[in-house]
């Protein structure tokens, strides 16, 4: 049985997650572009302001210049705008710049100074700045700089906006997606539950179809149509099979009766032996037909009202008593190991039949001197019964096939039998909702385990 579907693994959830991720990437790209464009524009405006001021100061009378440069500094209480006048040797003459910024070329163009401008008041020395330097006709150097904190501030605002935007859209989006995917997940779960009996072979079941007519309903409808067709075909195949077995039984039984009568009349004459062999052959065919019809009968049978409390220990004792003489005659040890078992609901006769088939097979495949073990103990869901033989075992590849009708493994071709024993067992196991497991025994032989349930698992059909 597959585990039930997980909401997180549903297609809707996956789509929502992919969509959410794409949305985040797109938002980041979009806001990044906005930030880049706006900082570029702001830088441009800033550069223009600085150039204009530079132009104004550059044309000023040299005598008034230091005063004007100082005034430019004091006009800027926030320390955003810096101005400085240096002599030809680079010593500061006026303004609020402590020393010539390194790497600044006096070419009258804007330069980005990542380390900012060394200011007298040591304010904001960590902020990068855009600066311009121009040599005056008297050899002095005029430096103007504006730090970029306003532009960085803009970046911070945009990043904050991005975070808010994302949390206000992505989180409700994910929650909404989760809620949305719960509906389909619930319906898939319903479908999953409905298919369990179908997987167990009950082809009369159908998937639930709602009145909405959505894509899941269309799918369920298609599956239901296919199931109907499979059921019809299976029924036809089984019907043909059963009819052949059934119709041939009547003439075969008559033929057997005639041959038997002839055999008795010929008693003592050499022809009697021929007749006897014919009767034995017909008996073999009839036995096989009986087994075949028995499998169909068990498969057709739905959960029966005849289920009652079964003392499994008693059933297993009966099986042991029934087969112990045969095992002894074959020179085998037939061991019964029983732990105390809880009673279960089932059909005692059918369970006896199932264990009888398993034990019969085990005895058939165990060579003389070997051991057959019938063992039962309680497990979590109910009793577990193992039948271990000392035969060649069942190869892993054949384990599914052995419960099919008429399947006989290579190892069993030389032994007589209808090849239907395990089919009968698996039909009985299915009828009870139990599980059959075919594995290896301790001694190399096969171990066939029946996992019974204390209470029947399938609801009454």
């Amino acid at each position: 049985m597959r585990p039930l579907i997980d909401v997180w693994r549903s297609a809707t959830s996956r789509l929502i997650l992919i969509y959410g991720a794409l949305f985040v990437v797109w938002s980041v790209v979009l806001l990044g572009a906005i930030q880049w464009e706006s900082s570029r524009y702001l830088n441009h405006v800033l550069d223009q302001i600085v150039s204009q001021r530079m132009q104004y100061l550059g044309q000023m009378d040299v005598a008034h210049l230091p005063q004007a440069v100082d005034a430019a500094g004091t006009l800027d209480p926030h320390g955003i705008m810096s101005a400085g006048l240096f002599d030809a040797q680079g010593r500061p003459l006026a303004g609020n710049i402590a020393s010539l910024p390194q790497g600044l070329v006096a070419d009258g163009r804007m330069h980005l100074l990542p380390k900012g401008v060394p200011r007298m008041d040591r304010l904001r020395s960590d902020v990068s700045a855009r600066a311009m330097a121009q040599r005056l006709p008297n050899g002095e150097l005029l430096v103007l700089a504006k730090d970029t904190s306003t532009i960085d501030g803009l970046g911070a605002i945009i990043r904050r906006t991005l975070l808010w935007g994302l949390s206000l859209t992505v989180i409700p989006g994910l929650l909404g997606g989760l809620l949305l995917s719960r509906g389909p997940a619930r319906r898939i779960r319903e479908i999953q539950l409905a298919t369990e009996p179908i997987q167990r072979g009950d082809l009369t079941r159908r998937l639930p179809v709602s009145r909405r007519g959505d894509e899941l309903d269309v799918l369920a409808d298609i599956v239901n149509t296919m199931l109907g067709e499979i059921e019809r075909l299976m029924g036809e195949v089984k019907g043909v099979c059963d009819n052949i077995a059934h119709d041939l039984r009547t003439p075969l039984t008559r033929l057997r009766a005639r041959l038997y009568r002839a055999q008795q009349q010929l008693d003592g004459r050499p022809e009697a032996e021929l007749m006897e062999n014919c009767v034995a052959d017909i008996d073999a065919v009839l036995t096989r037909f009986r087994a075949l019809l028995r499998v169909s009968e068990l498969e057709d049978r739905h959960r029966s009202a005849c289920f009652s409390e079964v003392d499994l220990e008693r059933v297993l004792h009966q099986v042991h008593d029934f087969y112990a003489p045969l095992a002894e005659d074959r020179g085998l040890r037939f061991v019964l190991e029983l732990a105390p078992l809880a009673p279960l609901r089932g059909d005692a006769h059918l369970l006896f039949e199932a264990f009888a088939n398993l034990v019969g097979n085990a005895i058939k495949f165990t060579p003389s001197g070997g051991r057959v073990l019938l063992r039962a103990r309680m497990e979590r869901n109910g009793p577990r019964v193992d039948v271990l033989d000392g035969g060649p075992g069942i190869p892993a590849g054949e384990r599914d096939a052995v419960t099919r009708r008429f399947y006989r493994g290579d190892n069993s071709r030389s032994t007589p039998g209808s090849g239907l024993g395990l089919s009968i067992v698996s039909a009985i196991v299915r009828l009870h909702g139990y599980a059959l497991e075919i594995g290896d025994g301790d001694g190399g032989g096969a171990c066939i385990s029946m996992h019974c349930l204390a209470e029947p698992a399938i609801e009454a059909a």
Partner: protein
Amino acid sequence: MPRILVIEDDEVTAREIVTELAAHGMVADWAATGCAGLECASAGGYDLITLDRMLPGMSGIDVITALRERRIETPVLMISALSEVDERVRGLRAGGDDYLTKPFAPDEMAARVEVLLRRHQPQAENRLRVADLELDLVRHVAWRDGQPLSLLPTEYRLLEFLMRNSGQVLSRTMIFEHVWGFHFDPGTNVIDVHIGRLRRKIDVAGKPALIHTVRGSGYRLAPAD
């Protein structure tokens, strides 16, 4: 001579049953419908009824229910083409005494009739006797020629069934159904092994064999001819 009422709508099957029963020394009357059969049975005088499960009009189950309601306790062998497990249970629950599935071997049908007749004979004694073999039904003990036999419970039940029906050929299926109480095909050799064990305890050396194998049919317990 036992009188048997055969209620069966199919003429071929009915003739087959009547012939086979006659061959076993029984007188058989045939009724073709459920109503006619019920009338005959109510009139009395029959030791056993073979009843088809599927009859037109009044079904086999209806007939047997009506019979039992009228307190007519004649043993009934149900014969049916329906072999389903539940069908057998339903037939027996309605009041049938044994159940045989079509198609059947005529000799097995006759054997089942005889077993039913024996079962319904009043048991005068608490002991069964066949030649020098004795069985105490109360104390569950058996003797051969005065020597007590040590029998396991299954062996005792098997011997009791054979002795109650001594002289009668019993098929392996019948033995399995009566002694073990199960209704499926257990494969022939298991029953043979059980008979073999019982035989080793009863047919001791120097005594005539009492358990006989009937080829193609089954077993019979009877004094040596």
